[in-house]
């Protein structure tokens, strides 16, 4: 199974990340998240669905510790997030943003090696083991061949896979991905989805994936959380949550939900605006 040297996490309980009644507001005028509770189990992929402005990205930032909840608490392996330093938290979980741009001409390997930052002292250089971990992460994401290519010259899908490799080199067992396929064409969407599924199956990488792509979510995720207006509308298995009634409430769309014959995944076909 997992034969690699990627940084491993201490296995404690089944629950890896947990938000309990978390509320957050950027300013007094508007509450972005209201009493949100989400539990992420080890080895699962949790899908985060919701319209624009429903609080998906904010929730990911709270999990990443770059925002602090106004009320409620978030724990990782049972420890409160605010009890960990920025570096300690970065060693435990990595974030893959929607898009990554570099101002300068870093090679793909250099981008991946940046994931080792929280594992090293302030002026410590990467050693042979760090390079080995980075290369292993690139192999796992199928980017080993682009090691010395300038990151800026890669296609959108290649870039995203390199960034995922960087995240794996940082914290191989817990990734938070913010709309990882949003800016990719169909082919690259498929590649990235496949990669995430394979990482989950072969390495038991735990993930939260926020997305607007319902079919991606149903094909990839074991559980879904539907966010609307900063509150949890529904959560549970894909079959339980992805219902026409929930989709109507979430997006204002009448949709046909059925099990696709050949893939066995739930597929969603929008029919029109709900009255």
């Amino acid at each position, binding site marked *: 199974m997992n034969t690699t040297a990627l940084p491993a996490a201490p296995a404690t309980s089944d629950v890896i990340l947990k938000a309990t009644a978390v509320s957050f507001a950027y300013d007094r005028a508007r509450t972005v998240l209201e009493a949100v509770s989400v539990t992420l189990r080890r080895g699962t992929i949790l899908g985060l669905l919701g319209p624009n402005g429903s609080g998906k990205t904010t929730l990911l930032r709270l999990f990443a510790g770059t925002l602090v909840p106004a009320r409620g608490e978030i724990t990782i392996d049972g420890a409160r997030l605010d009890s960990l330093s*920025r570096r300690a938290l970065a060693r435990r979980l990595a974030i893959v*943003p929607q898009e990554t741009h570099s101002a300068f001409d*870093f090679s793909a390997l250099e981008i991946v090696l*940046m*994931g080792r*930052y929280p594992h*090293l002292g302030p002026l410590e250089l990467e050693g042979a083991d760090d390079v080995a971990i980075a290369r292993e992460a690139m192999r796992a994401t199928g980017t080993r061949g682009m090691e010395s290519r300038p990151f800026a010259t890669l296609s959108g899908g290649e870039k995203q896979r390199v960034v995922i490799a960087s995240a794996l080199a940082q914290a191989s067992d817990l990734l938070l991905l913010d709309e990882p396929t949003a800016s990719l064409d169909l082919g690259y969407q498929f590649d990235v989805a496949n990669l995430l599924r394979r990482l989950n199956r072969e390495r038991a990488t735990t993930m939260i994936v926020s997305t607007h792509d319902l079919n991606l979510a149903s094909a990839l995720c074991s559980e879904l959380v539907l966010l609307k207006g900063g509150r949890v509308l529904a959560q549970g298995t894909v079959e339980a949550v992805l219902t026409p009634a929930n989709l109507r409430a979430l997006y204002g769309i009448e949709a046909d939900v059925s099990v696709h014959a050949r893939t066995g995944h739930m597929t969603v076909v929008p029919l029109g605006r709900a009255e």
Partner: protein
Amino acid sequence: MRRRIVATVAGFGVLAAAAVLLAPLAGSTTISLSRAFDRSIPFADNVDAQVFFVARLPRVVAAALVGAAFALAGAVFQALLRNPLASPDTLGVSAGATLGAILVIAFHLDISAFGVSSIPVASFAGSLGAFGIIYALSIARRRGTSTTVLLLAGVALTALLSALNRFVTLIADFTDTFRSVRWMMGALDVGGYREIMAALAPMLVAFAIIFSLPRVLDLVSLGSEAAEFRGVDVKRAERLALVGASLSTGAAVSLGGPIPFVGIIVPHIVRLMVGADHRVVLPASALFGAAFLIVCDLAARTLFGPVEPPVGTVTALIGGPFFLWLLFKRQR
């Protein structure tokens, strides 16, 4: 990585050392390096050594320090603002430092206390103030910080500060005016080692700060949130980088005046040669910046016959076209 750093420092170090040793040989009086370093002749009788160490070396050392300081400041500004066109000149930071220095000269505030001259302090205050304005703007527009807005702000600020500089120069009396004008053109005939020592302390502090930041600058160049996600304390890093680069600019301006374009050209040339990693870009920029300004100053004092243009003219002659080329390259 260690090998790459050592190779870079060695390569650029040899270049900078060669520039420091060879540049003092050129000039109206021809001297020989071996005679200058000949210890068997007493210094009082060794004309070559006197020309080398007293007449010419201070200027070369000043060029080296100023070149290194501008180049490092440029490299830091570019990473901090994620913008290849950022530099002490384009952001108005040099103009801010100049205003600080000129105010001190014009109003006769050139005093020194505890071995610290007021000119570098005023230059630092000016550069920090100018960059503070630009930086506040870039933070206010963090979501999609626009290159155009920042550079336009830099242009506006430079114009404003330059106007103030000219105004202060105009109302100052004649001898001060001459001193100020020469200053604004950028000149490295600083006098002697005492002037260099005055700027050296703030410069070394600035260098120490900047050289503590290379990895953080790599990560910040991917975006401040991306850096935060990887465990960087971005606010602290940005504050340190801001102080380091402003101090570096202020010290350089107080010694050599606002010599243009070194801060923008050198980091780019260096990146083309050694790649983007700041652990090699920073030392290479400092050493190449030193060599570059020594050579520009050498050209200024030897190539133009009876006239000796200020070194800022030479860097602008090289830097202007380079900056345009960079803009064109980015358009594509």
